[in-house]
Every structure is written in C-alpha cells, then in structure tokens.
C-alpha cells in the first residue's frame, strides 16, 4: 500500500539567499520530492522596452547595460551591431578587435560570477571569493579603459567611447598568465570535489531535443552535447578570424547535459575566451576609433533581428525603426528568460536541494529576465 502524503507548497523567494536575485519559486512538494515548480517573474521588471521607445538610439545603450548587468559589454555589443547594420555602417578594424577583447573578457567575468555563485548554492563559500578576487582584476581592466566598473556604456553606435588605455595590453597579458593556473585551482577545489560531483552529476539532465524545442541557448545548450555557438554558426563582427574551440558537455562524471556538464562547459569556455583575447591582442591593429561615428543616428524605416552569443546564451535585439531618431520598438530576446522556462521540466522528481543546484546551473540573471 502506498503511503498517502500531503502535498506541501513551499514558497522560495523573492528574498531567498539562492534564487540569484528576486525570483520567486512556488515549489510543490511531496515529502521532499518536487512535483512542480512555478517561477513567478517580474520582481525586477524595469520597463526597458518602454524606455527604449522614449530614448534616442545612443541613449538606449546605458539601459542595455542594466539588463544583464553581469555582461554589460556584451549587451552593448549586440545592440550596437544591430543599429549599425540598420545604418549600414562599417566600423574600423581596431574597433572590431577592441569590441571582441572586451566581449570575451566580459564573458570570463560573467562566467566567474556564475561559477562562484553556483559554488555558493552548493555550499562552498571559498571558491566564490577566489573567483570574485580574480573578477576584480577584469573590472580594473574595464575601469582603466572606460572609467566604470560594472555598467560601461562603452560600445557606441559606430565606435567606442574611449580608445584603449596605454597600459591595457600589458595588464591584460598579465591577467591572462595570472588567471590560467587559477582555473586549475578552481577545478581541484570545487569541480572535481567528490561532494560537488555527487551533488551535480546526473541531476537535471537536459536532453538535446528538449533543449532545442525550449529554445535553450548558450552554455546550457552546449552542455547537452550540441556544438552550437553563434560565434561559429552565425558569425558576427570578426569572430570568424579567431581560432577557438567550442566546448560541449561530454558527461565525464554522469549523463550528458547534467548540472555538472553545464558547470564544466563554463569552465572550459573561460579558457577558450582567454585564447581569443590573446589572439586579438596579438593582431590588434592601429587606427582611429572614431572614424565611423555617425553625427546623427537615424536609421531608415525597417526592422532587424540581431543576435549575439551573450555569456548566458543567444541575446537577440529585435529593433523596429520608423525613420525617426527614437526606436519604434526594441524587443529583447533575453537568454535567461528563455532558459529559465525549462526549470519546471528539469526539476520534476528531484529534491528541494536539487532545485537550487539546477537553478544555479542555468545561470540566470534577473535583470535580463524581467528587463
């Protein structure tokens, strides 16, 4: 005879230490087993799209910063190449290179937060602080270049706000050689730790087909074993000039597409990003960065869907212009917004503690989900 258990509804958040911000999860439990997770969003809905309609094109850039605040550079990146395409501007080589360097450094910084907070969710406090210590070094690089630590407003339509700082190249190379061994240390301290492996392997397995149907992108999709990266599959800017690998999940300690794979793909991606930064620094041409800055940003009537590979996944800007200086509509396809939708599917039948592990492995940013 099966025991009859009472269903319990547990409410996690919006203030909960590990919902990565202000997400509220309504968890239905049977004993400690999860039967359904309903995410309630909107606790950080800051009306980005409304603001975009009221601003001129360059004024929207500071607001794109504030969407995925862990990867502001990349948000700028996607928006400006979208607008540049509408205007038909070709930016100078140097600008392209600098953008890629910044974007990849930003990817590392974003993954650092993702990995660190994931460790925190699992209960390991120390790797989080080590990663934040290293992230501070990247922030310094950004700060000497554009003066801000978190929200940069660095990439402009047709150019950049500042040229690189004279010390930038040296400091970046120093950072690369400093950070490489630290990845190994992270792996030894956390990734290969038996407790960590037990907590994450075979948890929240995401099969490839489900992932595609749900529109999952970024490291989460790649962890399911599909080699799909917009930098390769739909190259924008000058990504086709660099030599890098696309890490995919292989199920080293469990099944392909589990939480551990999602974690490990990010670790590997950091190494690849370092590689890209190194190459870009070697090839960096001289030139004037402000050559292509348009006097007035006023794209012709039309629409465009521009997507870039944000650290979290595919970041798309659907921009409609009505021929004035203000965008008519800017809709953002936020990667975290789409990625979060899979949570219910993944966490069915797992324990409460696993929801935390799964949610952390999806690497969401609430600023982007709610916009």
């Amino acid at each position: 005879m099966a025991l009859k258990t009472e269903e319990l509804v547990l409410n996690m958040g919006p203030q909960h230490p590990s919902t990565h911000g202000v997400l509220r999860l309504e968890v239905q439990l049977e004993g400690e087993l999860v039967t359904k997770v309903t995410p309630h969003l909107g606790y950080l809905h800051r009306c980005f799209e409304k603001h975009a309609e009221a601003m001129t094109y360059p004024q929207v850039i500071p607001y794109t910063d504030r969407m995925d605040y862990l990867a502001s550079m990349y948000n700028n990146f996607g928006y400006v190449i979208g607008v540049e395409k509408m205007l038909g501007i070709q930016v100078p080589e140097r600008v392209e290179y600098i953008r890629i360097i910044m974007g990849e450094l930003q990817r590392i910084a974003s993954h650092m937060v993702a990995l660190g907070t994931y460790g925190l969710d699992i209960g390991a406090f120390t790797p989080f602080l080590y990663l934040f210590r290293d992230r501070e070094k990247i922030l310094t690089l950004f700060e000497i270049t554009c003066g801000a630590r978190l929200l940069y407003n660095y990439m402009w339509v047709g150019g950049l706000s500042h040229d690189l700082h004279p010390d930038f190249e040296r400091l970046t190379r120093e950072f690369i050689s400093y950070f490489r061994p630290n990845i190994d240390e992270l792996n030894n301290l956390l990734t290969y730790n038996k407790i960590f492996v037990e907590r994450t392997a075979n948890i929240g397995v995401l099969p490839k087909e489900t992932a595609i149907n749900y529109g999952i992108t970024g490291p989460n999709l790649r962890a399911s074993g599909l080699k799909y990266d917009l930098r390769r599959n739909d190259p924008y800017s000058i990504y086709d000039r660099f030599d890098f690998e696309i890490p995919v999940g292989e199920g080293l300690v469990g099944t392909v597409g589990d939480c551990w794979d999602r974690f490990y793909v990010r670790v590997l991606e950091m190494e690849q990003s370092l590689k890209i930064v190194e190459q870009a620094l070697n090839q960096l041409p001289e030139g004037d960065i402000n050559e292509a800055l348009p006097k007035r940003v006023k794209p012709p009537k039309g629409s465009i869907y521009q997507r870039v590979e944000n650290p979290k996944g595919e970041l798309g800007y659907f921009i409609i212009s009505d021929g004035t200086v203000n965008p008519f509509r800017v809709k953002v396809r936020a990667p975290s917004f789409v990625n979060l939708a899979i949570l219910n599917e993944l966490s069915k039948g797992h324990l409460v503690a696993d929801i935390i592990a799964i949610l952390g492995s999806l690497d969401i940013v609430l600023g982007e989900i709610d916009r």
Partner: protein
Amino acid sequence: MRQYLKNTWEGIWTIIIGMKITFKHLFVPSVTIQYPDQKVPLPERVRNRLYVNMDDCIGCDQCARACPVNCIDIETVKSTPGENLGQTSNGKKKALWVTKFDIDIAKCCYCQLCVFPCPTDCIYMTDVYEFSEFKRNELIYNFSTMQPGEVEEKKDNFEKFQAEKEAQKAAAAKAKAEAAAKAKAEKEKDEKSKNNNSKSSSNDVS
C-alpha cells in the same frame, strides 16, 4: 564493491586536495584594501560624481538633451547687449545667464553621455565617490553661481530689455508701417503723377 571502495577513496582524496589548497591560502597575503585607511588611486578615466565648471558654461543645454534620464535641469536668461558675461576658457563668448543648473545626482546613471557634447568641456566626471547623504534632497546639486536676487534681476533686466525691444520693435514696426504707408502713399502719388504724367504725355502725344 570496487565502486564502493573507489567512492570512499575519491571522497577522502578530493577532500584532502581541497584542504591543501585552502591551507595554502591561509598563508597567502590577503588582497583586501582597507578602505578608510588605505585608498587606491583611481584611474584617470574614472566616472563618478558630475561636476560643472560654471565659469565655462555657456548654457547651451546640450548636456541636458544628451542625458538619457533627464537629471540635468538648466534654465537660462538671455543677456542684454550691454552686459558682458565674459569668455570661456576656450574662447567662446557667453551669451546666456545660466540662472539654474541643477543636477539630481540621485537620478544620474553615470553614463557620461552628457560629457561628450559639451562645447566648452565644462561638465565632467570627477573621481569623487564619497558623497552619501542622510537626506535625499541633499543629493540635488545646484551648480549655478547666481544668487536668487540676481536671477530675478537678470530676468527683470531681460524682460525690460525684451519689453524695450518689443517697444522698439513696435515702434520700428510702426515706423515701418508708417514708412510703408508713406511709401505707398508716395507710390500712389507717384503713380498718380505718373498717370498724370502719362496722361499728360499721352495728352502730349495726342
């Protein structure tokens, strides 16, 4: 059974590795910056509190228009021709009294968009970041150097000037109108005379 022993061994071994790492870090000097006692120098491009050098401001309102959050509030009064407002440091001539230049620092998003369009480089971001307040209203910064009385005076001045100008204009208009009327009258006269003349001439001819 093998898996069982392997698990046990892996558990113990990875824990020992982890402990080795943290123990090593116990003796690594810490990276902490002890803030109030020790401050790191900020890079020169750093973006913190806005500052306006009113000596150079010409009140062109470009920063306020560039600002995405509309936190800059500028009011200007035109100067009268006799007044000398001086020059900015890069040689531009001022023509407006800036009676109000408020920046609500609490709204500011430190994006630096206001800094670039400024023709005289008078608005810029400083490296001051320690300016927290107990009251919200103290975060509204008034940069205008003019006293309220002075503002009134300038406004009055300008209005007076405006009124005078208006009067002059009116007078001028009147004069013009008169002149025009006169001209018209004269023209008519002319024409008349012409007509007369022509008449006369025709008469002459005939």
